[in-house]
């Protein structure tokens, strides 16, 4: 952008603070990324990309604000960019997801995490991310709206629709197979992503 003023150079101790906060949110970034894209290995790639971008852009982080929200915006934008470059095309492997999602839990669950995750992945991406942020990440509607760069009412309605869909899918045990490698489903997802991407997150608007 046409901003002239250079952000102030960070001191060594500010950098150390930034790094500590960044380190703290990495597990959350991994959880968010894994909810967004099906595969754990790709999710982790996305998180590493996010960490590098966050580090490079650390002057733009306002100390005292939420590092988690700030980095989620970066992760989200990286995800949208990758999706639109088809990097995730056809990469969702249900077998892999199932194995990895069920293995580490090691305890009785009211429903299989793999079912949960599969149901989640059938949601349109903008509803999926809204539900992840609010229902799993514990963000308020306002915070989620800031991260997604849209109105609070929009987030509320996306979360509401996502919940309604999951309610009926999981109650009936009827989870449609919307696989990402299906050609038409993939195109539909990309079209939806254009809508999602139209609302860029606040913090990343300048990134």
């Amino acid at each position, binding site marked *: 952008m046409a901003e002239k003023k250079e952000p102030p150079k960070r001191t060594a101790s500010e950098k150390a603070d930034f790094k500590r906060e960044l*380190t703290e949110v*990495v597990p959350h970034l991994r959880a968010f990324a894994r909810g967004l894209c099906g595969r754990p290995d790709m999710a982790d790639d996305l998180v590493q990309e996010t*960490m*590098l971008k966050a580090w490079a852009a650390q002057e733009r982080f306002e100390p005292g604000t*939420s590092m988690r929200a700030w980095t989620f915006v970066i992760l989200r934008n990286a995800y949208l960019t990758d999706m639109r470059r088809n990097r995730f095309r056809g990469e969702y492997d249900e077998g892999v997801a199932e194995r990895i999602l069920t293995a580490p839990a090691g305890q009785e669950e009211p429903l299989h*995490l793999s079912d949960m995750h599969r*149901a989640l992945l059938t949601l349109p991406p903008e509803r999926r991310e809204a539900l992840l942020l609010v229902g799993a990440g514990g963000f*308020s509607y306002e915070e989620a709206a800031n991260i997604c760069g849209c109105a609070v009412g929009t987030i509320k309605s996306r979360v509401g629709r996502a*919940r309604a869909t999951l309610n009926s899918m*999981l109650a009936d045990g009827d989870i449609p197979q919307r696989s990402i490698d299906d050609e038409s489903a993939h195109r539909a997802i990309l079209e939806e992503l254009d809508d999602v991407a139209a609302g860029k997150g606040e913090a990343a608007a300048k990134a």
Partner: protein
Amino acid sequence: MPRNEHETEKARRSGKTAGGGASPEWADGLRHLYDSVVEEPLPDSFKDLLAQLDETDDDDLPSKEGKKD
């Protein structure tokens, strides 16, 4: 972590959902899905990357990622 995240968390745990009515069973599953990843031990690749951040900073900045207008 900001406080209001915890308040939201409490509100949700008390069973309220946007659609009204009690929180469905899967809502816990969704949180568990997220929390199970949060609680995973961090793979070494992440620790390596975090360690590298300081190094890239001491030397010249990585021109690829760092310079973007």
